[in-house]
């Protein structure tokens, strides 16, 4: 059974990482006085996304549903989060590489092209969706039903099998 204190700790960590992500997404364009600042910010952001994905998977592994072998049920329930996290991670890394590649020589240079703008829009939109789904999943995993056998779980399992 999930302990309340450990769950609170994990949830705070997840929210902290999400807040950092949102902060970097919002203000990284402003913090570009030196290219190395942006580089560090981007590297930390990518590691943070990876950390968040690892944490959410560890939370999945901790559930009774997973331990009972019903991985399919978990994937079915949280596939939005898993897919979006992966997509967002890929988009973030590609945008960061592109932007850093263009700005490394001169950080205050106008670097925008249509392609970069498109990637930027998709990355930022994916970020918002990722925040929403990730937050929802993290909060949902606090539900004690995921950590014990119940009639609800059996019903869900039969629904998924259909």
């Amino acid at each position, binding site marked *: 059974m*999930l*302990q*309340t204190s450990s*769950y*609170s700790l994990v*949830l705070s960590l997840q*929210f902290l990482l999400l807040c950092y992500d*949102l*902060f970097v*997404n*919002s*203000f990284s*364009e*402003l913090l570009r006085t030196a290219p190395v600042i942006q580089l560090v910010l981007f590297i930390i952001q990518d590691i943070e996304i990876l950390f968040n994905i690892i944490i959410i998977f560890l939370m999945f592994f901790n559930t009774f549903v997973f331990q009972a072998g019903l991985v399919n049920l978990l994937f079915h329930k949280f596939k*939005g989060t898993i897919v979006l996290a992966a997509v967002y991670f890929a988009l973030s890394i590609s945008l960061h590489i592109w932007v850093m590649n263009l700005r490394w020589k001169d950080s*205050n240079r*106008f670097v*925008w092209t249509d392609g970069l*703008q498109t990637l*930027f*829009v998709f990355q*930022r*939109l994916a*970020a*918002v969706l990722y*925040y*929403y*789904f990730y*937050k*929802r999943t993290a*909060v*949902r995993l*606090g*539900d*004690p*039903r995921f950590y014990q056998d*119940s*009639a*609800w779980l059996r*019903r869900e399992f039969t629904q998924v099998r259909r």
Partner: protein
Amino acid sequence: MRDHSGLPLEGHPRPPRALPPVPSDIKDDIPLGRPKKKKPRTKTPLASASLEGLVQTAVHRPSESSEPPHKEPKEHVEAPVPRRQKKTRLPLELETAFTQKTSSPPLLRNENGIDGEPAEEPVIQKPRRKTKKTQPAELQYANELGVEDEDIITDEQSSPEQQSVFTAPTGISQPVGKVFVEKSRRFQATDRSELIKTTENIDVTLDAKPSWTTRDVALSVHRAFRMVGLFSHGFLAGCTVWNIIVIYALAGSQLSDLSNLLQQYKTLAYPFQSLLYLLLALSTISAFDRIDFAKTSVAIRNFLALDPTALASFLYFTALILSLSQQMTSDRIHLYTPSSVNGSLWAAGAEEQVLQPWIVVNLVVAILVGLSWLFLSYRPGMDLSEELLFSSAVEESPDKDKGIKASS
């Protein structure tokens, strides 16, 4: 023979009587008071005030009879020892119920080969009853209400022998099926089984009451975020309105003074763009939370039904896309230098061409955000996520109970 005289004495204090022979109105004290009262009585029989008369008769009787009184079935004990037994046990015997009185004494007499007085017949029964009742007594301490049914006498039987022996037969109390519970300073008879049921129910409800579960943590975090979202909705609406007012004020009438706008606004453009993204992201997430966007079917149904919250979510998302699409222009404004300066991004006369769509998009964003804020204000308490995520537990619990019942 005399060496054995100590045996009954040793055996004396050990088993407390199963059913506390107390008058019915002080039955609540039965399990606790009983063993303490008993021990002093074995040493000083006259100490007990309530049963004094009975005890005295019990003490006197053996002294009148010269014969050695009865012994326990398989022990050979001389006269002084049974006397002590009687001293201690007779009062108990008086108080407890006699169910097998008439049948057992002759049998015992045959076993021992000693004829006892008919008055002492109740004493002979004791060993048997004692062995029977020691275990129920222990159980009784564990559960005050768990009295064995066989100990309860439903029909009152008073043997003629008993009345002839004891002078004060009126004070006899017997265990009954009722338990007397004090309610509003009066003792009222309550059915024992009912009382057990009610106490069990209370235990169950107490156990089922959770303290601070992970669900509560999740719920509090969710509500905290909803509060942040509520703040960001209003702040975002105010910001965009202020922004569009500033833009139009700086641009002058009919957008005639665009260079002034660029000069003044270039320091503001990028910070505002960043702030706009932050607030739009928070507002969009909060609006998605309210319609439970992850459940696509519910969200689409609400949107088609023109639910204000679903509309607000859609408008926020549109505003977010529009705002993000102006990132390039914002950066261009941010890097503004007059066209006369070498390497300027702004060609002379091209300002209006770039700025007009940007101003229009900003205006549209301000309108969308303002409308969303209005729509959300229409039903500020709506939160489908909370209802769907956390209320399902309430629905689930009866099923769970059913499952438990079925398995048991």
